[in-house]
């Protein structure tokens, strides 16, 4: 028991690379901001006469054209965008895992049917479909937009998962588990799934980023979520209010920066998870690298000396 917990501790310590700490820090700060800040800021929709002015003591991030507080809007928009992202990523993960892993492992006609379906969904053009559905449905709630985004974004991940499963299914350790008498569901869950974690986590992160960007895109053209503020809707109103031409950077930079920082943080997390699960991808500590470099330099020096001697 003591040994397993110490093993877990070692795993945790390996996770704490600078890459992971920076990435997790970014994501945690943004998430906490989205969770907590909405309780403390002013009403984001309250209109005021003092419109379109830069940061002041009262409005830390300035105001919009109609005098709404940008910080308050940003807080609510962060919450909205994160919610869309998480819902879409979870749905897409389940869909891709179901169609990719199950089809890949079981093979046969089921795999054929699943592959065909995946390919059909894959070639459905995402944005136009979202525009069509979005313009048909009047009540575009958060959940509806999330489901549309999930339906159009799981297929690529499913294909990756399927091909990975096909490769892992034929590895000796899976065959050995079959010979040991493991049941199919346990082989998928215990022998195959852990080895798919890096792929699935990168798929999850990718879905999260695409969902937030996709929602931002939809909102920017005016057919996004109605009733919930997101980074995309902030950018939409900033564009409408001619923030760019008027040089109102405090209006469009915060939501844009949030999107970029969250994407950056999630990618950094993804890299370090990859390094944990696949030891081959793990980068050597600095000292090792230095030693290797020094060795190479030594060798180069040696050969140079030898050449001189030869000459």
């Amino acid at each position, binding site marked *: 028991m003591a*040994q*397993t917990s110490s*093993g877990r501790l070692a795993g945790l310590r390996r996770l704490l690379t600078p890459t992971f700490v920076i990435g997790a820090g970014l994501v945690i700060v943004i998430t906490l901001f989205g969770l907590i800040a909405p309780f403390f800021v002013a009403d984001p929709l309250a209109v005021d006469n003092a419109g379109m002015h830069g940061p002041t003591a009262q409005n830390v991030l300035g105001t919009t054209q109609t005098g709404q507080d940008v910080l308050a809007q940003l807080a609510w928009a962060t919450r909205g965008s994160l919610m869309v992202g998480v819902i879409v990523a979870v749905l897409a993960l389940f869909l891709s895992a179901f169609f990719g892993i199950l089809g890949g492992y079981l093979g046969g006609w089921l795999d054929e049917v699943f592959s065909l379906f995946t390919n059909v969904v894959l070639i459905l053009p995402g944005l136009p479909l979202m525009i069509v559905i979005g313009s048909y449905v009047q009540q575009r709630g958060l959940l509806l937009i999330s489901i549309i985004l999930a339906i159009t974004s799981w297929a690529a991940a499913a294909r990756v998962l399927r091909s990975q499963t096909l490769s892992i299914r034929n*590895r*000796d*350790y*899976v*065959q*050995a*588990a*079959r*010979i*040991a*008498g*493991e049941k199919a569901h346990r082989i998928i869950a*215990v*022998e195959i799934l*852990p*080895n798919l974690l890096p792929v699935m986590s990168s798929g999850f992160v990718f879905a999260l980023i695409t969902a937030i960007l996709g929602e931002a895109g939809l909102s920017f053209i005016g057919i996004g979520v109605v009733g919930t503020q997101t980074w995309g809707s902030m950018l939409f109103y900033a564009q409408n209010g001619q923030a760019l031409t008027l040089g109102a950077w405090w209006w469009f930079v915060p939501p844009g920066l949030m999107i970029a920082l969250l994407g950056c943080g999630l990618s950094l997390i993804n890299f370090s998870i990859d390094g944990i*699960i696949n*030891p081959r991808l793990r980068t050597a500590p600095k000292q090792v690298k230095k030693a290797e470099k020094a060795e190479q330099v030594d060798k180069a020096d040696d050969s140079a000396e030898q050449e001189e001697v030869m000459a």
Partner: protein
Amino acid sequence: MSTLVVKDLTKTYLLRDGLRFSRLEAVKSVDFELTPGRTVALVGQSGSGKSTIAKLIAQLETPTSGTITLNGKPVGRRGRALAAYRDEVQMVFQDPFASLNPFHSIGHHLERPLLLHGKATKADVREKALALLERVNLSPAESFIDRKPHELSGGQRQRVAIARALAPEPSVLVADEPVSMLDVSVRLGVLNLLATLQREENLALLYITHDLATARHFSDEILVMYRGDVVEQGPSDDVILNPQAEFTKQLLVAAPEPGTNPRFLAEATRRGVPMPDHLAALEETT
């Protein structure tokens, strides 16, 4: 006492190249018998169907035709019958770097088969796993059981793979080129371990290899395969010392012998020194 009898075993793969189909006869009506306490070596080149036979016996593939019987009963293909078969027949894979799941500890690889085959309970499974590690000379077992496969050397991994195969206490063991991926320096250790275990547990062992020397040394009977056919079959010494099939003779001369330096031989032929028989035979066949 259990005997595994393979009769008229055939496996044909259907290969698809676009719309064209072709057939690959990997194994063509092969017969042999595995009896407790005896080692049968299956020798042949790459692609001769050796590993297909291993997979057929391990029930990873279903034969196109022919039968495999264990103690006179045809083998179970699914459900409880298959579980009963797996109790008796286990396999060691060729590549110890691929046959252990990189995600799980050594303990997991031993504890799962112990639990699945009812050889241990949750309470004593760790103890039994430790005993298995000691059995394959990985000691102190405590220092191995919690490690991950990538922390072990090839020879140590293959010992773990052997321990896993022994966990269900089988009576038939298939070893598919168990040492071909290992360092030359540890091969003999792993082979000796297999031989010891086979003697002590009275296993029926199928030793698949392409190395005639170890086949002769470790087995009672040799089967020589060539392109899916068994071309020669008999007691080890007979096959090695008095080969009948053309392919066996080729295999024998293809093995390098210590003391025959090819450069020295070329010099010798130039001076008219008679060539050793087995090398002369090689010249003729090529």
